[in-house]
């Protein structure tokens, strides 16, 4: 073969490759292909795909390049690829079209070549039935090459005179295998990419839906958690009260509560270990058990002891809750309390203008059953301020990684001690947020201010 014919043959092959490339692209982007891929088969989309792949097969015959004594065609490619991608009906249909057109072109291998086109569609279809998805690119390419080997065997078996058929087969087998393998490489690459792209998109959409659903659930969970908090500060306690609770995430592990208890008022500020949903679920449990334990006639120590025992017996997750339980007595102006491992509340004495802490009187609830809690009592005189808080306030981080700490909390209280409990609370929050200006709120923040 001279240089000119090599170049012209190469150009024809390049042209064929481009046609297959564009066809494959168009087919995969058509709604017919997508519908069949999704399993929505109609007469319309199947017929359209039969025509598509049939047309590629016809093109594969027409483009035939004379090489030595053989004509190199890529006729089998359309039916084979169509069958593999869309199933036996489309493979066979395309094969019949390609085969019929080849029949009209005549020649002594017409029977064998036509039959090969039909069998290519059938083979592709059978693979589709077996795998139900487009095979790997390497497999597809190897299959296309092997099918051409089979095509040549068919030609030898059916075409006479045998000696001429053998010459043609000898000359054509390698180029045919290469041409069809190359065509299949292009086609399989595009189809595989398309399918992977679609699956990625479907996966992305699924994850997005899942996220949306979880977010909606979290919003409901947040509403439920908010509804667990008291609607308002009790008006008739005889003390000036203010509270705040701000989860770091949508839901949180802090809670506070006001519980009318006999003729007194129970106060709770608590912090469950951890954050987010697990902690939030646990707050519901802790709050409910605590309320159920607050039977008339019991003292605070007994309430905490029972609450601790129930939580410890039921908490295999090793969750625990630090909890301050106080009881305000309006008549005697006292606070009776027990502190189960909670950060010691800060007490400001107006008379001395000095701070003290209400230290812990037992361990956090839920760590181990059988714990005992001590009860203490303080007086709350006019102007005295008690601040119950969770570590979201004292552990709030400043720009340099420094923590807000107890001293800053105390100075915020001291500087606003002449104001109402709500104003003191506002001052505390303002200072905390000013301190941690650039930082995201990292921990749940809950506080209660009680002014005598």
């Amino acid at each position, binding site marked *: 073969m001279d240089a000119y014919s090599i170049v012209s043959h190469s150009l024809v092959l390049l042209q064929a490759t481009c046609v297959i490339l564009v066809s494959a692209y168009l087919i995969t982007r058509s709604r017919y292909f997508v519908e069949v891929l999704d399993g929505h088969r109609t007469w319309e989309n199947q017929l359209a795909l039969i025509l598509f792949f049939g047309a590629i097969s016809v093109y594969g015959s027409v483009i035939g390049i004379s090489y030595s004594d053989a004509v190199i065609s890529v006729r089998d490619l359309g039916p084979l690829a169509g069958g593999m991608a869309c199933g036996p009906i489309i493979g066979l249909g395309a094969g019949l079209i390609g085969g019929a057109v080849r029949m009209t072109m005549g020649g002594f291998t017409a029977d064998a070549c036509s039959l090969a086109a039909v069998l290519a569609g059938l083979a592709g279809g059978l693979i589709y039935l077996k795998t139900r998805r487009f095979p790997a690119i390497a497999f597809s390419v190897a299959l296309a090459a092997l099918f051409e080997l089979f095509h040549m065997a068919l030609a030898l078996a059916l075409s006479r005179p045998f000696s001429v058929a053998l010459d043609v087969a000898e000359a054509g087998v390698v180029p045919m295998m290469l041409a069809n393998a190359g065509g299949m490489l292009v086609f399989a690459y595009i189809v595989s990419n398309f399918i992977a792209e679609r699956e990625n998109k479907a996966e992305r959409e699924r994850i997005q839906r899942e996220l949306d659903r979880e977010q909606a659930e979290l919003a409901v969970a947040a509403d439920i958690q908010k509804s667990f908090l008291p609607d308002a500060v009790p008006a008739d306690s005889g003390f000036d009260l203010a509270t705040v609770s701000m989860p770091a995430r949508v839901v949180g592990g802090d809670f506070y509560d006001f519980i009318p208890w006999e003729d007194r008022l129970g106060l709770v500020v608590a912090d469950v270990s951890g*954050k987010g949903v697990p902690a939030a679920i646990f707050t519901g449990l802790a709050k409910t058990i605590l309320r159920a334990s607050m039977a008339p006639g019991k003292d605070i120590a007994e309430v905490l002891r029972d609450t601790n025992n129930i939580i410890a017996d039921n908490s295999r997750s*090793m*969750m625990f809750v630090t909890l301050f339980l106080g009881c305000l007595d309006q008549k005697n102006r006292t606070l009776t309390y027990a502190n189960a491992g909670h*950060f010691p509340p800060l007490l400001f004495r107006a008379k001395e203008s000095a701070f003290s802490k209400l230290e*812990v009187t*037992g361990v956090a609830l839920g760590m181990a059953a059988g*714990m005992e809690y001590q009860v203490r009592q303080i007086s709350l005189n006019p102007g005295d301020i008690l601040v119950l808080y969770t*570590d979201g306030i004292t552990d709030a981080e400043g720009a340099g990684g420094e923590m807000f700490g107890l001293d800053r909390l105390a100075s915020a209280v001291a500087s606003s001690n002449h104001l109402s409990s709500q104003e003191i609370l506002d001052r505390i929050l303002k200072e905390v947020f000013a301190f941690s200006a650039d930082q995201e709120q990292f921990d749940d923040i809950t506080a209660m201010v009680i002014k005598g």
Partner: protein
Amino acid sequence: MEINKIIIYDTPILNVSGKIDAVTSKQLESAIDELLKLDAKMMLLDLREVEYVSSSGLRVLMVAKEKLRQRHGDLRLASLQPLVREVFEITGLKQFFSIYPSQGEALKDMLHKS
């Protein structure tokens, strides 16, 4: 947070540094779980370089201690900084753990007994 694991006489030791908060406590939990696969009974956590432990971190320690207790072992702690010690004292966790002033003293005690 950084975790360095070493094993001395079959006793896994975790040298932790940084902050053990809601995020990093999960790393600590996986590191401990990894060591629990070794079937060791005793484990030592050296908190010399730890400046902060959140309640999530405390829970991880309680869980690890409970897992070791179930195989008749224990999780011991060493070298608590003042702020960390305070958290252990306030929550009451202190009374559930054997806490040593230093890794050396912890090992001396632990290896001597086992």
